């Protein structure tokens, strides 16, 4: 066991013991000893073209599997390039371990070449971070990092390792236990509160389940489904929770919030009991808080005690792992039943009738045209090819909202997007991580023409590894979401949102050695997408869509979610 090895080998030993099979990174000066050890190690290192994308790819891997994603960068610029990805993982509670090289211990603080205070810079970007000062600490720190990243509310953990620690020789001593006396992981949920929640649920005449990313993180889809079926309650899932309840489930309404459906937002507004599961009452969901679910008693289940009461004070707070809490809740619900069942059944039927009416009144209607490709049409075609089963890694902007509205996901971990931080340039690199994690899956990288151009360097990664990712660019020639806001709220003064120059997709893809194509006719859409999916290798499909299409429904900033702007011609209130 106790063979002498250097820090670099020891780090790989730790990664192997944590079950890491591949990770994403970019080498540099101080990580040379580490990359030397990687050279003949069985763990696969994926060379990306920019460190930010290493972090996004690790996120894609983590989001597609639930396992901890790992990325690696050198000191200084390598480490600072990780920052966006770390904050992104922090906002969406994604388990990441980021490994960074640091200048040798003796040089720390001397403004050495490629030195940056990574530990200080990433303090607020991570759930926790470490600077390893001596080799003996390395295994303990690395295993702690994985434990912290994956347990409780998941998040990114960074481990900064000086070059001399990589080089020092030592024995790997197996880490048998982790002792973090101040790190509290809440799992079970208070029994009394679970009973109260069950009682309140049975009393509800108009319940609404509001499920979020916590359902996906906790792997609680089955429990959520059971709850929804026991109560026969309508359910909305947030942008982060899409797939948490299958889109083809009869109780699934759709996504709520700023670009949520009419039925989802009206349902939230008029419910009498809001069952909030693994959500954080994000401002993009709630709109104006005073008008959010104003008649509802709120049951809030979350693993993070700081989320309870942060935005909305719940009537029944439950701190715990949503999977375990729902498991117990479902048991209590199954053992009990409402007091006046007849009356409740009638009320529930009336509630469903209203929700169906809202759905019919303003459905998320497919928009198509004979002359130009409507973005919604593109999303419906992706939906058709996916059949609720493909992984869609989305960038940020209009296309993300349309995809969330029109592409259906029948399982969790298929919809991968940057929710909280809204990082442009996320879609394509996260697809790389997702495809490595799930080689069996059809993976779409969906981006706008803006975000795609942030990710172009990674076409090389896709080509180099022959990843059969289907890159779909929804090209409207604008930074569409910003353009939409300028049109609606800034007198249509389109300031720096025009993307005049876009490369020829066919030539661009050909330059990297794979197929690409640009289309702009609606009749080409279905066949072009089919061709892309049939292609065994990567494919870049540039879809020119109508440039001035806006995402509706839309809740203007500061508006209540039941005050949606449903269609373009209606006047829009100018925000204060």
């Amino acid at each position, binding site marked *: 066991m106790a063979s002498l090895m250097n820090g670099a080998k020891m780090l790989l*030993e730790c990664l*192997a*013991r*944590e*079950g890491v099979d591949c990770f994403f990174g970019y080498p540099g000066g101080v990580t040379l000893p580490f990359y030397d050890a990687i050279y003949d190690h*069985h763990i696969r290192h994926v060379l990306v073209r920019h460190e930010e994308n290493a972090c996004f790819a690790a996120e894609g891997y983590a989001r597609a599997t639930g396992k901890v994603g790992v990325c690696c960068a050198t000191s200084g610029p390598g480490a600072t390039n990780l920052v966006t990805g770390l904050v992104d993982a922090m906002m969406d509670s994604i388990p990441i371990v980021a490994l960074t090289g640091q200048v040798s211990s003796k040089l720390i603080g001397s403004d050495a070449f490629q030195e940056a205070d990574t*530990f*200080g810079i990433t*303090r*607020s970007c991570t*759930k*926790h*971070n470490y*600077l390893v000062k001596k080799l003996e600490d390395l*295994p303990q720190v690395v*295993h702690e990092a*994985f*434990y*912290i990243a994956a347990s409780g509310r998941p998040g990114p953990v960074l481990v900064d390792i000086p070059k001399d620690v990589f080089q020092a020789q030592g024995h790997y001593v*197996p*880490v*048998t*236990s*982790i*002792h*973090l*006396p*101040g*790190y*509290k*992981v809440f799992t079970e949920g208070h029994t009394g509160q679970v009973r109260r929640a069950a009682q309140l649920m049975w009393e509800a005449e108009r319940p609404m389940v509001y499920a979020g990313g916590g359902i996906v993180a906790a792997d609680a889809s089955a429990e959520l489904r059971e709850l929804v079926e026991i109560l026969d309650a309508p359910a909305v899932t947030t942008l982060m929770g899409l797939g948490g309840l299958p889109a083809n489930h009869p109780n699934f309404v759709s996504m709520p919030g700023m670009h949520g459906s009419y039925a989802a937002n009206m349902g939230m507004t008029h419910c009498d009991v809001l069952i909030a599961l693994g959500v954080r009452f994000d401002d993009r969901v709630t709109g104006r808080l005073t008008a959010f679910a104003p008649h509802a008693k709120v049951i809030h289940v979350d693993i*993070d*005690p*700081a989320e309870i*009461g*942060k935005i909305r004070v719940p009537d029944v707070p439950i701190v715990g792992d949503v999977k375990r809490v729902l498991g117990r809740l479902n048991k209590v619900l199954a053992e009990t039943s409402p007091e006046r069942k007849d009356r409740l059944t009638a009320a529930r039927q009336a509630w469903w009738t209203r929700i169906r009416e809202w759905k019919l009144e303003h459905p998320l209607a497919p928009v198509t045209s004979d002359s130009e490709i409507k973005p919604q049409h593109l999303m419906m075609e992706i939906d058709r090819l996916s059949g609720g089963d493909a992984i869609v890694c989305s960038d940020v902007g209009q296309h993300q909202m349309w995809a969330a509205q029109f592409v259906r996901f029948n399982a969790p971990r298929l919809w991968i997007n940057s929710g909280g931080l809204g990082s442009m340039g996320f879609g394509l690199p996260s697809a790389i991580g997702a495809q490595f994690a799930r080689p069996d899956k059809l993976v779409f990288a969906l981006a706008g023409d803006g975000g795609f151009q942030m990710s172009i360097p990674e076409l090389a990664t896709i080509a180099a590894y022959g990843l059969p990712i289907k890159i779909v660019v929804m090209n409207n020639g604008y930074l569409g979401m910003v353009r939409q806001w300028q049109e609606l709220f800034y007198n249509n003064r389109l300031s720096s949102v025009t993307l005049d120059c876009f490369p020829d997709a066919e030539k661009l893809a050909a330059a990297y050695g794979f197929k690409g194509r640009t289309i702009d006719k609606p009749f080409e859409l279905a066949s072009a997408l089919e061709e892309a999916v049939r292609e065994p290798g990567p494919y870049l499909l540039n879809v020119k869509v109508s440039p001035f299409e806006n995402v509706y429904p839309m809740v203007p900033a500061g508006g209540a979610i039941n005050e949606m702007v449903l269609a373009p011609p209606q006047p829009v209130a100018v925000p204060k």
Partner: protein
Amino acid sequence: MLQVISLLVENKPGALMRITGLLSARAYNIESLTVARTLDPELSRMTIVVDVDAGLRQQVIKQMNKLVNVLQAVDLTESPAVRREMVLVRVRTTQENRTAVLQEAEIFGARVVDSSVEGYALEATGDPEKLDEFIEVMRSYGEIETTRSGVVAVSLDPRKLKLQPPVFTRVAMEEPVQ
């Protein structure tokens, strides 16, 4: 509104930065901060006085309790607690008012820690409001220099410290998969 927070913190590099960073990230202004080792040299006790909107006090405590290095964060703003601060004052005195200064110092329970021809250095402890008064009085005698320690506080309620037990890592125990 000023919030008094008492924290028990692991004495690890960066722990202070995590706590102050949490406050500065929310644009809260720190009024005072004291930190020193406890009986257990691996732990530190901090007392922070910070300007926080009353409605957000609980949120601040929750966020602090989330930090891995924080063993316990408690809000002492409204709970029974003793709050004390120390001030060192150098006061220049004339020959005439030397005795008066000493008498005033005695009223405030201050001690003389240095005496010279120019004046005295005085040490006083008490709750912050009392020290404000003491400083005011001393200022009336002439030019002064002061250094305040910031508030230290101790809760009068017995509080159970809940520490997390070690977690055994099965993954770490297993042989790596080849």
